[in-house]
């Protein structure tokens, strides 16, 4: 039993789980009022949008790719929903549908470029970052406040749990996304193909797996998650602002990496990503409770954690690898997937 629990795949997830418990425990001891069920639930409420982005990103990174456009796609989603609601006065459900379609379509477009023309995901999604951010300004140069009843209700209503504790509808959506994401990754043919592509795209192709279709689907999925994250973010801020989600792509990547997903592809889990987001949220709460530190320390701590986890991953790989593998992996460029 212990051996099964401690196999290679679980070690990073267990490390991050321990880190989360340590940080949360330390906060509970050090600061009064830190430990409560509600405070734990708040982590999901405050980071619902990030959780959704990170689940999409998990798929992309496991497949060996990267998606830098998610932050500005989230911004674009908030702008489109605010504009359609307040300027066109469309039905809120129709607005949500349109936003999700736009996000998926942009992701699909990028996936096609990456797959059909063999272009590096890094550059294509970087251009996507520009494109979506620029489109935000095309929609409107000013911030648009949202007064729509449905969005207001979604922002303020609470889903009661045991006792006085509650979560927001956004958190429920985020957890549903996590559940679906985890199921798809683990138990469907699509999920298996994602892992196979990340492990070795050439082999996946030779095995007869639908690589092209799956890769395009992965980027479409990430686009969908960005759009959904944007809608949830809009529930949170009740406005559309063209700079929403600036730099969030890196938060999403960072949480996925901290959650034990390998940037070289092939290894990772949705559960790890949830833990990554929880650690991220806990750092923020700890800095708020600490009081004297500037909130920008969050970025420094996150940067350090990403370093720490990448470093540990390298150590694991180096210890496992044979000499031949090690010669190749010593040189980073050779391991980068094309």
């Amino acid at each position: 039993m212990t051996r099964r629990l401690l196999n290679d795949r679980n070690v990073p997830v267990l490390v991050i789980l321990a880190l989360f418990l340590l940080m949360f425990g330390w906060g509970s001891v050090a600061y009064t009022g830190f430990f409560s069920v509600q405070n734990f639930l708040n982590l999901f409420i405050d980071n619902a949008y990030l959780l959704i982005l990170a689940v999409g990103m998990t798929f992309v990174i496991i497949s060996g790719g990267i998606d830098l456009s998610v932050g500005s796609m989230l911004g674009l989603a908030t702008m489109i929903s605010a504009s359609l609601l307040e300027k066109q006065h469309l039905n809120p459900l129709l607005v949500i549908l349109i936003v999700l379609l736009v996000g998926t379509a942009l992701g699909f477009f990028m996936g096609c470029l990456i797959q059909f023309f063999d272009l590096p995901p890094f550059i294509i999604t970087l251009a996507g970052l520009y494109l979506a951010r620029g489109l935000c300004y095309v929609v409107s140069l000013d911030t648009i406040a949202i007064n729509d009843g449905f969005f207001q209700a979604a922002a303020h209503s609470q889903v009661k749990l045991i006792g006085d504790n509650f979560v927001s509808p956004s958190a429920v959506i985020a957890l549903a996304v996590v559940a679906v994401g985890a199921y798809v990754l683990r138990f469907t043919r699509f999920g298996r193909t994602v892992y196979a592509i990340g492990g070795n795209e050439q082999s996946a192709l030779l095995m007869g797996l639908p690589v092209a279709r799956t890769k395009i689907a992965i980027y479409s999925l990430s686009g969908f998650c960005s759009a959904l994250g944007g809608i949830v973010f809009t529930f949170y801020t009740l406005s559309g602002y063209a700079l929403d989600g600036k730099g969030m792509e890196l938060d999403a990547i960072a949480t996925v990496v901290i959650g034990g997903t390998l940037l070289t592809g092939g290894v990772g889990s949705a559960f790890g990503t949830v833990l990554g987001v929880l650690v991220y949220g806990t750092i923020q709460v700890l800095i708020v409770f600490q009081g004297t530190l500037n909130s920008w320390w969050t970025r420094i701590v996150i940067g350090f954690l990403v370093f720490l986890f990448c470093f540990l991953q390298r150590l694991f790989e180096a210890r496992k690898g044979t000499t031949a593998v090690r010669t190749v992996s010593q040189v980073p460029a050779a391991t980068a997937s094309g």
Partner: protein
Amino acid sequence: MPSARSLGRTKLVWPLAALGCLLLFNFFFTPNFFHMEVKEGHLYGNLIDILKNAAPIMLLAIGLTLVIATKGIDISVGSVVAISAGVVAILLGGDLAGHPKYPLAVAIVAALAASTAAGLWNGILVSRIGLQPIIATLILFVAGRGIAMVLTNAMVIWLYVKPFAIFGQGYWLGLPFSIYLVAGLLLLTALVTRRTAIGLFIESVGINPTAARFSGINAKNILLGVYVFSGFCAGVSGLVVCSTVMSADGNNAGNLYELDAILAVVLGGTSLNGGKFYLLGSMVGALIIQTLTTTIYAFNVAPEISQVVKALVVYAVSLLQSERFRHRIAGVFLKGRTVA
């Protein structure tokens, strides 16, 4: 004419053609675009503005060209610009009378040292620990802006030290001083890479690091070196950025510069697959981006929307670089010919 033929062989002709098209467009459609006049002994005009505004990106692009030649990438340069600006600003201090807290030279050396140290960190992660370049520099991309904000205490520091203004606003012999910085650094880099074997070493590491190592090149130190140099270039760029607005804003200084600089390098013909680099091409690339931005301004389009145009340019350029795309296009033409 051998010189014309060698110009065609170097990839420089394509970026120059693109720049030429942009300028031609402006010649016909933007009134007074080429207008120049001498005011107070300085040259003024759109063309000078383009050179001046492109300087920070050109400086970044010099360092980044070498990094990309090794098949690497450095996305931390924008954050390093912010760090460099932050360091110089806190050392000079926001004294209203313009008395620097520390001598100007000390502040400049410290800023360059800080950014070079940032480059060294990236270089160690890539060459010694063996992280993928994107990830290694991602760490400083995330943390760097945080460091800059913590340095400046999350405030915008305004500078009133007059002599410092020369980097971004000064003129020398009628031209902006920053142009001389770019030219100097470019010349130095070109000499070191093209007159010694270092350029060849960099390219061979980009083509096949293992083979390079087996042929006796210290691939690790070459990798380390290019990242350190990229950090240094970002530091110089930070000085220019900070001096242009005479303030250090940790949040906005150098924001999205990494993207512009990467775009400049790619537009200049250096492939992201490494192995070859064109320093002059990268400079032309930076000028293309700046000319594009200036053109968009001239048409009274909101500057933010220019990002959409930039994105489309990136898509077009990367499609042209894609072998599969070229084959497909060639296939269409060939098919037409055989049928006819």
